[in-house]
């Protein structure tokens, strides 16, 4: 077993990588700024620039593969499909058509509107995915706790995230036991639909049953003990990052004023 000092360092969340070691609040601030800026951005290319920047930062953290895997669905489903749909169905005067498929026409103006909407989606999802790939949920929640989130609320967030694998494991057990009772749970869509209730009912009921014991177990471990809570895992903010967040906010404000003027008034 490592020494207490080594273990303390292990849970200090410092990994020697500037992106991974960035305080989660700074990453969340980046998400927020990009969301606001994308709304005020006059050009559709903004979201794509954010996507590329996030890709570079994630690559720097060694998480590019996971990032691209996550973004692939968003790029195809939301950006690609949205652009195609908007390009075909956009209506207005003096449209410039460049493609005709039967009675449908594709216009440049529709493509621009579609890309604009896709840009907003990219501006939000890229930094968000970057944040989740480069910070653990617990780190994000600790940062939120530092910002005033109550321990009860942070517990709810964390347990919700951990509940998914727990429920998966439990549903696998239920599925096996239902199979052993000759209930078909695998096959075509109809078979699976029929198996839904025999699967979901015990899952929900067992979750309710375990909640009672879980809550009493937590209570006995001092969940409501009146004191300020401590944590083994620590994350530290730095004055430079605090200044960085303020600067990010100011720059976003300026960008929104200028961008908003060109987008809506010019």
């Amino acid at each position, binding site marked *: *077993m490592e020494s*207490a000092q080594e*273990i*303390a360092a292990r*849970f200090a969340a410092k990994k020697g990588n500037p992106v991974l070691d960035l305080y989660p609040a700074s990453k969340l601030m980046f998400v927020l700024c990009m969301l606001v800026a994308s709304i005020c951005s006059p050009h559709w290319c903004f979201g794509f620039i954010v996507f590329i920047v996030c890709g570079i930062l994630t690559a720097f953290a060694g998480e590019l593969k996971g990032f691209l895997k996550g973004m692939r669905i968003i790029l195809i489903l939301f950006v690609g499909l949205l652009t195609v749909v908007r390009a075909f169905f956009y209506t207005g005067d003096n449209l410039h058509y460049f493609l005709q498929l039967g009675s449908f026409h594709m216009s440049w103006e529709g493509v621009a509107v579609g890309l604009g909407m896709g840009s907003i989606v990219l501006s939000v999802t890229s930094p968000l995915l970057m944040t989740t790939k480069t910070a*653990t949920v*617990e780190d994000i929640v600790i940062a939120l706790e530092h910002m005033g989130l109550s321990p009860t609320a942070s*517990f709810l967030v*964390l*347990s919700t995230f*951990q*509940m998914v*694998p*727990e429920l998966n*494991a439990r549903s696998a057990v239920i599925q096996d036991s239902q199979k052993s009772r000759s209930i078909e749970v695998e096959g075509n869509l109809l078979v699976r639909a029929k198996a839904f209730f025999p699967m979901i009912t015990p899952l929900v009921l067992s979750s309710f049953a*375990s909640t009672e*014991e*879980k*809550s*009493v*177990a*937590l*209570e*006995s*471990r*001092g*969940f*409501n*003990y*009146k*004191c*300020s*809570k*401590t*944590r*083994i*895992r*620590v994350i530290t903010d730095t004055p430079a990052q605090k200044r960085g967040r303020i600067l990010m906010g100011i720059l976003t404000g300026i960008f929104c004023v200028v961008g908003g003027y060109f987008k809506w008034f010019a």
Partner: protein
Amino acid sequence: MVCVELKDVSYRYPTGEKKALKHINLQISKGEFVAVIGKNGSGKTSLCNAIRGFIPHFYKGELTGEIYLNGKNVLESSISDLTLDAGYVFQNPFSQTSGTKETVFEEIGYGLECIGMDRMQIIEKVCNIIQTLQIEHLAYKSPISLSGGQRQRVSLASIIVMEPEVLIIDEPTSQLDPKGTEDVFEIIHKLKNMGKTVILVEHKIDLIAEFAERVVFMDKGKIILDGPAREVLTSPILEEYNCTMPQYAILGREMMRRGYPLQSVPITLQEAKEAVKPYIRTEE
């Protein structure tokens, strides 16, 4: 010094027709290792819940009598107030984990985080307990990925680490193999030697005979027998209630019935060896 005291305690669950506990009077002194035995539904877990304060603070219902834990009136203290007085290891280890921690190390330290202990102190305490329970190989695993037996050890560790005065342990070996079961009993024995008061609910009667110094036998919410382990575990009353005796006690009683003049009925392996020794013919 008495650290657990129940005075004429009776309790009925909100949806229960019969009382789960009936006129319980019990005193447990500091440092005692008390095993609670009895059939399923005899009131063992309800007794533990009452001592820890889950009854009546969490499980409502009809409770009469008085309960004291470390001199604190349980009925007037909240469950959190009693955190450092009594730790409770649940029968189902899957309910014991917080469900918020990514590693076993953090999971074990969760209770200490809740009571606001200094970070370095938590780390040192968790390290010690991990070494004591020999679960170093689990330290950085996700609690979700553990098997039932591994979770049971982690649950035990997460309570022991808080160093409560009284440890209430409800069937801690239900998901363990024989070796794991013996290991857990060794740990509990160590805790007893450290001066902790241990209240253990368990069905493995042979291990109780080996380790416990006092046994409480319950049936239908009542305490039927309460006394030194030897007295209770060799009492013919156990048979009247269809409760199994330790196998060495059964052997000893059978030998006595057949005319072997044993000084006392053995209840442990060592005692059985000693008792049988004079009657074994060796080639020498």
